[in-house]
């Protein structure tokens, strides 16, 4: 009975979200729509990192690398041949990429699959490392991807990047992928396999003593996480319509990491909440970088100021509320109904 109620409430929530997006599309300006789109993409990215780090305990800092792979692969598949010819000034794009074309959905999927393949490839050597070493190795991987993108002009157009990427990533695509990611990862972490991942995170030795093939499970989790990071990168490329290697600096990974830590390692609802809050705040805080005039005082804009504020906020979270907004808890319909019922009873008293 509870299960069918949960299902109905989920459908209702998705319908409500759909209605809100439809309303937003008709009534909000382009800037606000852009933020809504970024919210969806950031949630996808943070969910995938939470799977890797929060649920499997793999401290990975390679997200920007997977995003870059997803972004380049997908963009090359949706850029029209004529546009490709025009922007590849240093070196022409190699055949068959120069003529290859795919519908947007297939392109995003291909971006995700390519990222997952790279995840698989590096996971075998890298996942044998534990803890901080894994962080350093994955960070190195992301950096290598960026350097390669900078130099492989025949495929990536080097430092010039790709321009004029068709803007297919509208609100429906982004939220569609976002919901799919949430659904997929929620199903995964609540399955038997999800319990195996949490067991590995909690105690690797004990997990091995249970007969769990720890390395294989880590590889699977890491590759699925890489897939969704690739999808997020692909959507972001189409949303922004231009990409270049400089976009995929460590800062990008840091933003995602911030959402995951703030929301709570091992909490999907926490990630969603933090995804909304932090994306909106990151935009809103742009004002601190603008020049301000108070009376006769003129303060010039300080670029990077909002990142300082955010880094400090992250420090505070780690110092005072290490488990993030939600800890490992989840918001569930049964929980919400329970709270409402108790409140109702209190009001009647």
């Amino acid at each position, binding site marked *: 009975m509870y299960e069918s109620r949960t299902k109905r409430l989920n459908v209702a929530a998705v319908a409500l979200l759909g209605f809100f997006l439809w309303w937003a599309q008709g009534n909000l300006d382009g800037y606000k729509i852009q933020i809504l789109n970024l919210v969806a993409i950031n949630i996808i990215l943070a969910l995938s990192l939470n799977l890797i780090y929060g649920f499997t305990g793999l401290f990975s800092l390679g997200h920007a690398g997977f995003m870059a792979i997803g972004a380049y692969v997908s963009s090359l598949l949706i850029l029209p041949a004529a546009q490709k010819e025009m922007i590849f000034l240093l070196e022409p794009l190699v055949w068959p990429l120069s003529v290859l074309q795919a519908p947007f959905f297939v392109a995003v999927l291909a971006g995700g699959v390519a990222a997952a393949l790279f995840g698989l490839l590096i996971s075998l050597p890298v996942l044998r490392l534990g803890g901080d070493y894994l962080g350093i190795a994955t960070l190195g991987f992301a950096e290598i991807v960026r350097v390669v993108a900078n130099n492989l002009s025949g495929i990536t157009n080097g430092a010039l990047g790709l321009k004029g990427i068709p803007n297919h990533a509208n609100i429906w695509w982004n939220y569609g992928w976002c919901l799919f990611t949430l659904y997929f990862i929620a199903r995964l972490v609540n399955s*038997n396999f999800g*319990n*195996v991942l*949490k*067991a590995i*995170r*909690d*105690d690797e*030795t*004990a*997990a*091995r*003593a*249970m*007969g*769990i*093939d720890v390395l294989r499970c880590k590889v699977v989790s890491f590759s699925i996480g890489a897939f969704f990071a690739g999808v997020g990168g692909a959507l972001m490329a189409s949303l922004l319509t231009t990409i270049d290697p400089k976009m995929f600096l460590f800062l990008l990974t840091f933003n995602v990491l911030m959402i995951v830590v703030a929301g709570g390692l*091992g909490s999907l609802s926490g990630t969603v909440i933090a995804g909304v809050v932090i994306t909106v705040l990151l935009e809103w805080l742009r004002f601190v970088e603008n020049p301000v005039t108070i009376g006769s005082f003129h303060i010039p804009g300080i670029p990077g100021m909002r990142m300082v504020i955010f880094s400090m906020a992250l420090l505070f979270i780690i110092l005072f509320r290490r488990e993030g907004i939600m800890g*490992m808890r989840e918001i569930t319909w049964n929980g919400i109904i329970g709270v409402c019922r108790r409140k109702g009873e209190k009001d009647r008293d």
Partner: protein
Amino acid sequence: MLRVENLDVYYGGIHALKNVSISVPRGKIVTLIGANGAGKSSTLRAISGLVRKKGKVFHDGEDISSSSPEAITAGGLVLVPEGRKIFPHLTVYENLMLGAYVRNDRSGIDETREWVYDLFPRLRERAWQKGGTLSGGEQQMLALGRALMSRPNVIMMDEPSLGLAPLLVKEVFEIIAAVNAEGVTLLLVEQNAFAALRIAHHAYVLEVGRIVLEGSGEELLADGRVREAYLGG
């Protein structure tokens, strides 16, 4: 049932186990006692394939010296690690189900779980509680129950009484005797030499990585050297 021949373990330059040979007959409780750092945990970890070793290990007549930990568990030899390594963020039920990871006979697993719940009724009451919120004694029950879920024929337990109040220690040893009465062979590592020797059929004494003494539980309880070193005179 379980035979260990000439086991050597090195940690970097440290020679932690020196030529250790142990034999655990079917259906018996065998205990390994020794002071801190004697190499008791190392012995168990080496047998279950968690650390690199030299020497031979036979389980049920099969050479498992170079098998992976996963294969060893699947073969029916399971370790309950030191310090009750239960999964704190998973429920009691989920912890138990992970113990059955190497099995895939759904109805058989349900049966075993009921059997474990009958052995430890407290686990049934707390099936939906997170493992990390159990008391120390309950966590030890869960660790043992989880090991039983794979339906092993040999269980190795590393210091099950560690950090428990005397009353709980007694309870844990009763549980161990009950599990043994169900036909499970046990290799038990203990600091609490007195309690271990009392239930063991056979015992080995380990001193700085070497077996220095062996005999039946009663013999060692009566042995002057053992009394002096491990039983407080």
